[in-house]
């Protein structure tokens, strides 16, 4: 009732802002209820101050939790980016080896990763905004709690029953509204972080299992495996060719005629040679 005098006098001009006045009434009702409950209003002040300090701790923990989530997402983004680069390289290598099918597969998976990364970027931006808001809320609350403490001590020192109701009411309703708001903001941040943690857990599992956004349902490393196989086959061929060349160019000149022709001068025996190549593969 104490505070309603002021509100009612303003209410006339605020009549059309009915919606949001109703929200503010909910906040205020909360403060009044807490205040009316106490026998001696001074006890309420001390109790409220204690609650304010608790809330301040909670907000600070909230800021730290959001920061932790944000950092986790940063690590995941860089891991996914690494995977994405790897797939891009694999695609390039596959194309060089004439395996367009493998290149396509690698690029398909990469595009799946790109979606994941975009999603993480959005989450990261959300968390960053949340972190900033909460940090500001913590600063604001700290200043208000400090102001409340000063007012509280003054009121208690000069306490007379007659004036106490009004003065306590003024100090109390302002901080009480702030606490309600900040309390809700922390709650929202916690909910959001919990949701993101669950999703981050899923991404971690994905990274650990090696099955990344695979449309085909095959194991992730088969592209790498096949490329490795091709690369090693290629290496064997190159090594063979090199060794043959060594033999041909050898100082003894004892190399068999057909080998010399195959390695160094293919044109000499055009018919026999492709057959041998074919057999080797």
């Amino acid at each position, binding site marked *: 009732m104490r505070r309603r005098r002021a509100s009612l006098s303003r209410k006339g001009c*605020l009549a059309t802002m009915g919606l949001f006045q109703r929200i503010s009434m909910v906040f205020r009702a909360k403060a009044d209820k807490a205040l009316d409950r106490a026998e001696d209003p001074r006890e309420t002040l001390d109790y409220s101050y204690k609650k304010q300090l608790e809330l301040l701790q909670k907000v600070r923990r909230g800021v730290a939790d959001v920061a932790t989530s944000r950092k986790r997402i940063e690590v995941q983004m860089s891991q996914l980016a690494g995977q994405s680069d790897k797939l891009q390289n694999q695609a390039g290598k596959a194309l060089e080896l004439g395996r367009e099918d493998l290149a396509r597969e690698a690029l398909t998976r990469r595009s799946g990763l790109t979606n994941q990364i975009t999603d993480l970027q959005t989450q990261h931006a959300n968390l960053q905004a949340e972190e900033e808001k909460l940090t500001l809320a913590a600063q604001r609350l700290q200043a208000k709690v400090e102001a409340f403490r000063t007012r509280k001590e003054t009121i208690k020192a000069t306490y007379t029953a007659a004036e106490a109701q009004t003065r306590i009411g003024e100090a109390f309703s302002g901080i009480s509204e702030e606490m309600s708001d900040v309390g809700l903001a922390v709650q929202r941040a916690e909910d959001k972080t919990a949701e993101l943690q669950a999703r981050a857990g899923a991404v971690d599992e994905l990274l650990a299992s090696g099955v990344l956004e695979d449309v085909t349902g095959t194991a992730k490393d088969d592209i790498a495996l096949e490329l490795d196989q091709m690369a090693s086959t290629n290496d064997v061929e190159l090594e063979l060719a090199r060794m043959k060349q060594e033999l041909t160019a050898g100082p003894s000149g004892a190399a068999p005629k057909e080998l010399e022709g195959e390695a160094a001068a293919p044109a000499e025996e055009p018919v026999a040679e492709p057959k041998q190549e074919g057999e080797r593969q």
Partner: protein
Amino acid sequence: MIVRIMGEGQLRLDDSALAELNRFDDQLGEAIESGDDEKFRSALVALLDAVRASGTPVPDEELVDSDLVLPYAEAHVDEVRAMLTGDGLIPESRTS
């Protein structure tokens, strides 16, 4: 006039700014009635922008209660409806 944007803090507005703010009220009311979140959001964001533009932040150390409390920009229309009825807005343990 003191206006709180939830999660952001309080702003002091000249009473003359009210006429402008009132224009948003009908839109918001309609959107809340219809439950159309998209419509609601655009009206809410416009209202918050107007408040931020014409208001001066209340100093951190000032203790004053608000005449109006506005939802935060991301608040879903269903959340705001719950706020209006007081359901689940402020659980007992938070402020008492």
